[in-house]
């Protein structure tokens, strides 16, 4: 049994914890167990064969590289947005600050069709890019754009508190001692923001990896070219290949958890190093 570390005057611990655990157990643990048991019962050779088919490997590769690039783009521009929102006063700052959450609040199907129609050959952006020979929608570039859109708030929201905590006096001191803007940024600002940047990157990357709704419209879903891993799970399910869907899902979840764990370890180590 779970016990309290300290006795408490407040009642209801047992009741609330019991309720919380049963609710989570039924809704989260049992379904998760279903996935794990399903994959544990799979024939190992069959499992390997399923998850290493060229189409599946291509989807994993696209999901990981596109998510990585999208998170990378947001580390740069998201940092600029976060910086401007924290440090500068300008008209409309509050409104813009809340609008940053729009990609999180907007249903992914809606952002998906909007971005697709914008980037399609006849659309506002696609029409501009077409004469340059650049295909924006229905290409890997489209996947990156959709993932950049949906992962933006994660980077900005991770960075804002860290930028608030920076002491401008330290930057001023660097300036007084003769550092230029670039030098101040690289030597003073970037190192203190590094943990928050890493957190923001991870959150954005993890979100992009699992994203489905906003990508499937703009990607065009061409096998071996523009299919993402979550789409393949949906495709397998449509073909009533539940075991195949579960196999791809297990690999994705394992990769995502390994990534989160690695980032956690790096962060703990850097915290120890600074402490």
């Amino acid at each position, binding site marked *: 049994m779970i016990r309290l570390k300290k006795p*408490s005057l407040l009642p*209801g611990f047992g009741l609330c914890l019991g309720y919380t655990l049963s609710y989570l157990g039924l809704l989260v643990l049992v379904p998760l167990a279903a996935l794990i048991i399903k994959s544990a019962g799979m024939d190992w050779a069959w499992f390997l064969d399923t998850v290493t088919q060229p189409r599946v490997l291509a989807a994993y590769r696209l999901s990981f590289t596109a998510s990585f690039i999208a998170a990378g783009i947001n580390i740069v521009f998201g940092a600029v947005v976060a910086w401007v929102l924290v440090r500068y006063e300008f008209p409309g700052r509050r409104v813009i600050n809340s609008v940053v959450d729009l990609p999180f609040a907007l249903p992914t199907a809606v952002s998906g069709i909007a971005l697709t129609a914008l980037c399609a050959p006849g659309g506002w952006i696609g029409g501009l890019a077409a004469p340059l020979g650049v295909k924006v929608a229905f290409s890997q570039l489209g996947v990156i754009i959709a993932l950049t859109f949906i992962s933006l708030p994660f980077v900005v929201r991770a960075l804002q508190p860290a930028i608030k905590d920076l002491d401008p006096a330290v930057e001023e001191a660097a300036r007084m001692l003769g550092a230029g803007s670039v030098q101040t940024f690289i030597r003073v600002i970037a190192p203190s923001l590094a943990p928050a940047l890493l957190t923001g990157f991870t959150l954005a990357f993890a979100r992009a990896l699992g994203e489905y709704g906003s990508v499937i419209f703009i990607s065009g879903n061409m096998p071996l070219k523009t299919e993402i891993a979550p789409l393949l799970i949906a495709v397998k399910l449509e073909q009533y290949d539940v075991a195949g869907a579960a196999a791809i899902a297990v690999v994705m979840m394992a990769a995502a958890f390994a990534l989160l764990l690695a980032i956690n370890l790096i962060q703990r180590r850097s915290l120890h190093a600074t402490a």
Partner: protein
Amino acid sequence: MQPLSTGSSSSVARARVNTGPRRLLLGLALGYLALFLALPVAFIFIQALAGGWRAYLTPMSDPMALAAIKLTLVAAAVAVPVNLVFGVAAAWCIAKFEFTGKTALTALIDLPLTISPVISGLLFVLIFGLQGWLGTWLSARGISIIFAAPGIVLATVFVTLPFVARELIPLMAERGKDDEEAALLLGASGWQTFWRVTLPGVKWGVFYGGVLSAARAVGEFGAVSMVSGHIRGRTNTLTLHIETLYNEYNMTAAFAVSSLLLLLALATLAVQTLMNRAESGAAGG
């Protein structure tokens, strides 16, 4: 709230001296947000109204759209209250008590946010689908969960599970236990303390958590798409209805229905802004 005042006033003063980088960064940030946020929003409204008001309103009164709206509202009407109760209970034990396994419990609550919505849907297919654990048992009794409304409700409850709890845990922890302990020492019962002391203190957090859950419930796509089967008029939610319209090249209708969900998202953000303002106002005195 973070104390902002000293830092920002001196940095504003410095930024005035140093307008070159300031203008550059401001321009970059606003340009990026205009491209990625303002442009899609404007585009959705323009596309939705491209055929005039009549063409805008027709798709909303279509029987298929009405059926989708009804199913979406049913799913939200189940998911929000159920997760409100869960969120309050979970926040009460996590925020007010110290016990072993607290971190693991919090991580478990966050799980529906960290896994892909497609996998969330798949989990329920694995249990209730025809090839799933309970599949044969259910089909022998003529009960359908997957490719039917119950599956959609379940998937919606799953993906909205974390929102209220995540909103309330920091809020309740910040308020501490002193008020409740005082009420109990003065002779209030446990339930009285909860209803008269705890709940009024966090009512806005409960409200906002509910708003976030409702927004997510209405907007969820990936998870419900896995369990829906896309039967028009029966298992299509609003977002799935948009997908159907879009795939039929019915752009005006797809964007008209999308604009409804966009308005809902903007309303959610407005509520959030008001809450933040009220909070920072209270913190600043």
